[in-house]
């Protein structure tokens, strides 16, 4: 028993090292980008990483960003664990926003808890539907899910913009002739509680954390979660054990899309109180980084989404302070993905692992007897 739990901790240590190492590499490479953009990288990073933590505004905004990131990240982790990649978070968020807002506007007088639950459910259905299409196409038509989810993103954008400009537009915008593409405001009952006067921090974060625990329990403590992980880990063996791989792929994408949809609902009910253009701010893609950074584990995704919330808020502040566009954070996110993926490969090589370990003072594992324990 001892040996294996030691192994477990070592694995955990390895993945933590991988993650921190790649963050470091990404930040170092990012420094070059700052230099090219004509800013002092140290100062830029100083502002980006420290300023949000030094005031109430930064702290609350960080958590406001973390909530949708967490939900998208959870969905991505479910999909990855089930052996299917979901790059369609953006589209699924939009569908979630559409379904959620429609229900919110249609039933403005429901009691608050009921209405909020109804909006979440509707958003889950919307996102799940969009994800489910890609899952179904993968399972039954063998369409690569990376292509289909990306393509579905484009379709979702068009549908979304059409709805905001046509059927779902705020009647006032039409009446006054301003024509801003957004829906009417949701009733008070459909708004998440805000905790601190003057700040946007809302109960969505707590809901997201609760859902992270639910996802953890689901994946590791239920039969359905066990089956989904089995299908993801080795579809062949899963088939031989009687599991239906196709059903599970569809289910994984429905759940994954549903979580992205709920991220949309959180933005609507917690932040904007209506559906509007560019509501997602790239959460669908950033969520992938959050999930990878969190080790595709729900309990890693909670802190990981905080880190990325911090980066996003920090990037905004940095933009004002050193005059470099905040979109540089997208480049840094990209670098983090590249760094995580490549350091994963790098450290999967046992010899490399050993070097890292001996640097860290751990014991060797590479030069294990190849037949060790094989008797």
């Amino acid at each position: 028993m001892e040996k294996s739990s030691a192994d477990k901790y070592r694995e955990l240590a390895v993945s933590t090292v991988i993650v921190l190492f790649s963050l470091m590499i990404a930040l170092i490479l990012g420094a070059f980008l700052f230099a090219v953009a004509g800013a002092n990288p140290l100062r830029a990073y100083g502002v980006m990483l420290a300023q949000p933590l030094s005031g109430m505004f930064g702290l609350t905004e960080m958590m406001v960003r973390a909530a949708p990131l967490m939900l998208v990240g959870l969905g991505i982790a479910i999909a990855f664990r089930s052996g299917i990649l979901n790059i369609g978070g953006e589209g699924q968020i939009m569908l979630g926003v559409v379904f959620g807002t429609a229900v919110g506007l249609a039933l403005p007088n429901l009691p608050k808890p009921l209405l909020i639950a109804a909006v979440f459910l509707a958003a889950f259905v919307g996102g799940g539907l969009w994800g489910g299409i890609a899952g179904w196409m993968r399972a039954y038509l063998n369409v690569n899910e990376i292509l289909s989810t990306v393509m579905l993103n484009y379709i979702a954008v068009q549908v979304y913009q059409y709805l905001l400009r046509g059927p779902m537009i705020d009647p006032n915008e039409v009446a006054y002739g301003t024509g801003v593409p957004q829906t009417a405001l949701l009733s008070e009952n459909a708004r998440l509680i805000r905790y601190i006067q003057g700040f946007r921090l809302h109960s969505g974060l707590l809901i997201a954390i609760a859902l992270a625990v639910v996802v953890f329990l689901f994946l590791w403590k239920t039969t359905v979660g066990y089956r989904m992980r089995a299908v993801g880990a080795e579809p062949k063996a899963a088939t031989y054990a009687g599991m239906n791989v196709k059903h599970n792929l569809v289910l994984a994408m429905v759940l994954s899309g549903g979580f992205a949809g709920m991220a949309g609902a959180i933005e609507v009910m917690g932040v904007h109180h209506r559906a509007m253009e560019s509501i997602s701010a790239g959460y669908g893609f950033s969520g992938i980084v959050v999930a990878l950074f969190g080790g595709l584990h729900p309990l890693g995704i909670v802190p990981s989404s905080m880190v990325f919330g911090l980066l996003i808020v920090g990037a905004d502040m940095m933009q004002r302070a050193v005059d470099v566009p905040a979109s540089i954070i997208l480049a840094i996110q990209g670098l983090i993905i590249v760094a995580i993926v490549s350091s994963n490969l790098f450290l999967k090589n046992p010899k490399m692992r050993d070097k890292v370990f001996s640097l860290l003072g751990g014991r060797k594992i590479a030069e294990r007897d190849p037949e060790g324990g094989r008797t």
Partner: protein
Amino acid sequence: MAEIIDRLEMNHITKRFPGVLALDDVTIHLRKGEILALLGENGAGKTTLMNVLYGLYHQDEGSVLINGQEVQIYEPLDALKRGIGMVHQHFMLVPNLTVLENIALGMYQHSEFKLDLERVRGRVKEVAERYNLSVKPDAYIWQLSVGEQQRVELVKVLTLGANVLILDEPTAALTPQQTDALIDLLRQTVLQDTSIIFISHKLNEVKAISDRVAVLRNGKLVFDGNTADHSAADLAEKMAGREIKYPKIQKKDEYGVPILQVQNVWADGDQEGTDSLQGLSVEVRAGEIVGVAGVSGNGQRELADAINGIRKIKEGRIVLDGEDISNHSPQQIIDRGMGYIPEDRLHEGTIPRFSVRENLIMKDYRRAPLSKALFLRKGEIDSRSESLVKAFNVKTPDIQTSCASLSGGNIQKVILAREITRKPKALLAAYPIRGLDIGASEYVHNQLIQAREEGMAVLLISEELDELLDLCDRIAVMYEGKILDVLPREECTKQELGLLMAGVAHGKE
């Protein structure tokens, strides 16, 4: 070109891994023109010893001498320069390159920028003629059979100038016919200035091929002597460190009702327009083991998949204990009482990344007491897994260890534990001892016999005639998607089975 190795010595080699003494003062010698078999169970240290010689590891103590001179081998390149080449158990060939290109990969070129394939062609031709090893230089690897690929590996190593060849379980992927061909070929090879170290745990091969045999057990050299002076049973005993009994079934006079009936089944092959099963019929009664003999690739895999609902059948019927299960889903078939030990134990039988515990519940996780409503019950699962690991003697640090880190024999025990304790009505075992050492094979066979005693209907797919003759009440011979004949065990001879497996029907020549 390296100098000819007249005498190779590995003296007092000791190699430690954390917590394990992998090699303990092992000394072996090899003379020119000799075939030395390195025999031992999995984990005995055979591969480690050879990895030391090939430079993949460096010994902690001891020395390697070539022609009396001590040499230091720190990496495979050092070994190759001195004329030591190794063919690994899994071929190291690039399928999308031609034979020549693959051989060129390992060679030093004169120029960094120009690939001189013609020079390689010349070398290959030279080697092929000298050793009488024909290869098709311009064929792509993927076009070649496993036997041909093996020949390419041999040519590759010989082309690099090796005159000591290390072959790590070279017959693991070969059919019996290919194995015979390889043995002939190796015999010819040593007529030249070459010697061979042959790693194996198959006794009949060792007997057939080697001049001398060294037996390793738990990292120690326990025996070194002339092969001809010792019987196979003798060697088996030395290898296992105890007497090995090849389990055999006891004759029965009565069998139960037919449990598994495959009736005139047709199924598609993987290539379009071909039929892998062509009107196949076979029947297994309760308490009976029926063997399916045949050279692999004659539809055995498809038969196993069809019975388990993984492959659709076009015509015919499959009946399990009176119920038609043709084209039912795998889950339905499992629920009706089918057990299955698949051919590929690592990817079909288990999920390598999952723990032993998670692999043990793969077929029962949805049932009480392992789960309640939607939730897995950790306590029940843990105690069931612990008791199965104990009952089936699975050697694993604990139930949380991933299956990928277990040996083949222990993975097979995990699968057996899972399948047999479900008490299926019928049990299908496909090549259950392929790649396992004697001890593990003995265990698997005893379990299958036990299943027969408990009244299961066992269908055993195999190409090892000894296995079939020891275990089966009746043997069905499969050829090109059909059963040519079903023979009671008492009426079978190896010769007859061999002819039938080659497609020569009963009674005619």
